[in-house]
C-alpha cells in the first residue's frame, strides 16, 4: 500500500471515530454530566440526581430578561412529564407515544418517531398516560414504552436500533406498565416498572445498552422461599406491588445504583399483615448483576400509599464537621431521610411537611414512632391523616444545591380522612388494588394553599423559606449556581425564585399546566432553560382541584434565553 493510501486510510478512520465521538456518549461523558453543563445527558442532570447546574449567566439581577425563544408542539393532549436531554445542539424529549429530536436553538423538528401500544395497555396505567424521559448511550436514545418494551433509537435519525419486550409475566393484563426513564450505567440500562395499583409484583431490571439483551431482574417483593417473604401474610406477596416507576441514581465510587420502591398492594393493609419487604424501600443494587447490597424500608406495611419511589439524591453533606456521602429522599410519608450512601445507615429523618401518622423515627433502629391515628387506621377506624395518599411530595423531583446545602422541594399540603374497611374479595393480578380499596376524603388547612415550594435543610427537615401555591406544584425543581430555583406551576406559569429567600423573581405563562422537569444548558457561551408544558398526570386528573378547571391541555416544549437584542 502506498503511503498516500495509508494516510488516506488513517484520515478516514480518524474522521469516522471523531464523527462517532461527537455523537457517542461514553461512560465518561455520562459520569461527568453534572460538571459539563453544555449538555444534559443523564436524567436528573447527572448521576447524583441533584438537578443542580454550575451555570450562572442567568442570575438574580437579569432573570427578568428571560424570554421564550421558541416553542414546539408535541401534538398531544396527555400530560407532559418528560426530562429533556440535550446533546450537541439537539434536544430529545418523549411523550407516551412519541420520541422527538428538536434543534435546540431554533425549535425545528429534526425527527419524530411515533410509538403505538395496544389499547388495553391503558387499563393498568393508574396515574396519567405519560412518559418521563429517555437515556443516551453511544449514539442511541433509549426509552421504555407504555406496553413494557425497551427500545433504542439512533440519535441522528430516529431509526430503531433494537427493541426488547420485558420478559414474562410483564404484560398489561398482569398489571404492568412502563412510564419512567431508564438509567444507563456502564452499558447497562436499568429500568423500573409501574403497576402497584393493579396487584403486580414489582421489580427493577436491566438490559444491555448495545444489544437490548435482558440481563437481570431484581424483584422488589420476594417469592415463596426467598428471604423477606415471611413479612407477608399468607400468599399476599403474589400481588404485593412494590413498583419502581421513578428513575434512580448512581454512584461510581461505590458502584451502586439507588432506586426507590413503591407501595404494597392492595392499598388496604388488612390482607397483607407484616412489614411487606421490600416495598416502600430505598434499595442499593449492583448495576452489573442486580445484587441488592443494602435496603432501607421507609414505612413498613404501609396503609397509605406512601411509596418510596422519590429519587434518592446523592450528595456530600457536612455532618458533625465531617463530609459524608449520603443519599437523601423526601419521602411521600412526609419525612426527609438521609442515609449513608455506602451502608444505608440512617443518619437523619425529620418531617418536611405536616405529618401526624408518626411522631419521629428512631435513629438507632430506624423504627417509626407511630401515633394513635396510625394504630387506629390499621384497626379499620376512621381517622384524619396527614399527608394524604398523594404524599407530602409525590414523584416531582427535588433539587439540591451544594452551595446552599439546601433541598428545594415542591410539597403537597393536603390531608385525608381515611378508613380501611374489612376486605371482601381476594385480589388478582391485573385488577385494581389501589384507591378503591379504602375510603378517603381530602382535608385542607386552607383550600387555597395546597402546596409549597420549600428550601429545606436535609439534616433537620426545617424550611428556611416556604412559598405557598394554590395548587401543589407537580413540576420538578432545578437550582443553579446563581442561586435561582426554577419550577413550573399547574396553572402554566414557568417561574424562577430566589434560592435564598423564596421570592418570585420571574414568571412566564405557558399555554397549559406544567408538571415537567426544567433543565438548563449552554451553547456558544449563552445559557438556556428548557421545560415542557402540558397538564395531565395523577393530580390534575383525579384531585378535583377547582383551581385547575380552566387550564387547557396540550403538550409543548419551551426554551428560554436572556433577551440580548
Amino acid at each position, binding site marked *: 500500500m502506498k503511503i498516500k493510501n495509508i494516510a488516506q486510510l488513517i484520515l478516514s478512520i480518524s474522521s469516522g471515530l471523531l464523527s462517532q465521538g461527537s455523537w457517542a456518549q461514553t461512560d465518561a461523558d455520562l459520569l461527568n454530566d453534572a460538571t459539563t453543563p453544555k449538555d444534559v445527558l443523564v436524567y436528573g442532570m447527572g448521576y447524583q440526581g441533584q438537578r443542580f447546574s454550575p451555570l450562572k449567566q442567568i442570575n438574580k439581577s437579569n432573570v427578568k430578561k428571560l424570554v421564550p425563544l421558541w416553542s414546539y408542539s408535541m401534538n398531544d393532549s396527555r400530560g407532559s412529564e418528560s426530562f429533556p436531554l440535550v446533546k450537541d445542539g439537539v434536544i430529545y424529549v418523549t411523550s407516551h407515544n412519541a420520541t422527538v429530536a428538536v434543534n435546540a436553538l431554533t425549535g425545528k423538528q429534526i425527527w419524530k418517531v411515533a410509538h403505538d401500544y395496544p389499547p388495553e395497555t391503558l387499563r393498568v396505567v393508574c396515574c396519567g398516560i405519560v412518559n418521563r424521559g429517555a437515556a443516551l448511550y453511544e449514539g442511541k436514545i433509549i426509552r421504555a414504552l407504555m406496553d413494557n418494551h425497551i427500545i433504542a433509537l439512533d440519535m441522528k435519525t430516529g431509526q430503531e436500533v433494537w427493541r426488547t419486550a420485558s420478559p414474562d409475566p410483564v404484560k398489561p*393484563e398482569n398489571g404492568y406498565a412502563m412510564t419512567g426513564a431508564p438509567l444507563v450505567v456502564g452499558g447497562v440500562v436499568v429500568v423500573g416498572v409501574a403497576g402497584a395499583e393493579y396487584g403486580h409484583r414489582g421489580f427493577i431490571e436491566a438490559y444491555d445498552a448495545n444489544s437490548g439483551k435482558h440481563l437481570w431482574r431484581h424483584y422488589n417483593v420476594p417469592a415463596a422461599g426467598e428471604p423477606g417473604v415471611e413479612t407477608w401474610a399468607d400468599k399476599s406477596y403474589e400481588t404485593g406491588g412494590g413498583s419502581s416507576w421513578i428513575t434512580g441514581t448512581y454512584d461510581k465510587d461505590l458502584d451502586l445504583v439507588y432506586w426507590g420502591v413503591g407501595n404494597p398492594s392492595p392499598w388496604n393493609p388488612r390482607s397483607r399483615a407484616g412489614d411487606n419487604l421490600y416495598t416502600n424501600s430505598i434499595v442499593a443494587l449492583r448495576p452489573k448483576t442486580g445484587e441488592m447490597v443494602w435496603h432501607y424500608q421507609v414505612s413498613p406495611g404501609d396503609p397509605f400509599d406512601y411509596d418510596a419511589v422519590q429519587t434518592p439524591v446523592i450528595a456530600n453533606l457536612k455532618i458533625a464537621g465531617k463530609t459524608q456521602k449520603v443519599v437523601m429522599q423526601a419521602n411521600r410519608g412526609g419525612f426527609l431521610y438521609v442515609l449513608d450512601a455506602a451502608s444505608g445507615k440512617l443518619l437523619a429523618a425529620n418531617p418536611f411537611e405536616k405529618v401526624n401518622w408518626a411522631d419521629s423515627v428512631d435513629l438507632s433502629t430506624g423504627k417509626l414512632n407511630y401515633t394513635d391515628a396510625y394504630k387506629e387506621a390499621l384497626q379499620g377506624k376512621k381517622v384524619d391523616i396527614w399527608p394524604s395518599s398523594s404524599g407530602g411530595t409525590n414523584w416531582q423531583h427535588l433539587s439540591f444545591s451544594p452551595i446552599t446545602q439546601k433541598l428545594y422541594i415542591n410539597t403537597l399540603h393536603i390531608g385525608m380522612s381515611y378508613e380501611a374497611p374489612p376486605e371482601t374479595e381476594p385480589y388478582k393480578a391485573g385488577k385494581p388494588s389501589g384507591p378503591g*380499596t379504602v375510603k378517603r376524603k381530602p382535608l385542607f388547612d386552607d383550600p387555597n394553599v395546597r402546596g409549597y415550594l420549600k428550601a429545606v435543610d436535609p439534616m433537620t427537615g426545617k424550611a428556611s423559606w416556604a412559598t405557598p401555591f394554590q395548587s401543589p406544584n407537580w413540576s420538578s425543581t432545578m437550582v443553579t449556581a446563581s442561586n435561582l430555583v426554577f419550577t413550573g406551576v399547574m396553572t402554566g406559569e414557568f417561574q424562577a425564585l430566589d434560592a435564598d429567600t423564596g421570592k418570585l423573581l420571574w414568571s412566564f405563562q405557558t399555554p397549559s399546566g406544567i408538571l415537567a422537569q426544567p433543565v438548563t444548558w449552554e451553547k456558544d457561551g449563552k445559557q438556556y432553560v428548557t421545560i415542557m408544558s402540558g397538564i395531565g398526570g395523577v393530580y390534575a386528573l383525579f384531585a378535583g382541584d377547582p383551581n385547575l378547571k380552566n387550564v387547557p391541555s396540550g403538550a409543548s416544549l419551551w426554551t428560554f434565553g436572556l433577551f440580548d437584542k
Partner: protein
Amino acid sequence: MAPWTHFSLTMVLQISSCSVATNPFLLGLLWALVLILGSAQACEFTKVKSAIDQVTNPKEDVGKRFKALVEDGWNSERVLFDLTDKDLHPLMDDCRPEVEAYLNQLGYPSVH
C-alpha cells in the same frame, strides 16, 4: 375495533340473525362473544357514558346511592363499577382513562 373483531362479529351476527330471536342459548352465546371479542379493545365510550350518566343521575335512586357512597369516602370509580351491571364491566375496563376523566368532569374525581 380491530378488523378481525369486526369480521368475527359480522359472521356471528349473520349466522345467528335467523334463529337468535327464538333461541335463548344462541342469544346468550352471541352476547358472550360480543363481550369476549369486545374486551381488550379500544374504548367505545358511548355505552359507557350512558351507564355513567344513569348511575350518577341525582334524580334516580341509584344516583342518590352513588352520591352517598362517594360522600362517605369511597372512590367514585369503584362505586361506579359496584353499581353497574357486571356485563358492562369489560367495556368500562377498556375505557378506564375516559371513565376517570368523565367522572372528574361530573364533579366525582376518582381521587388517587
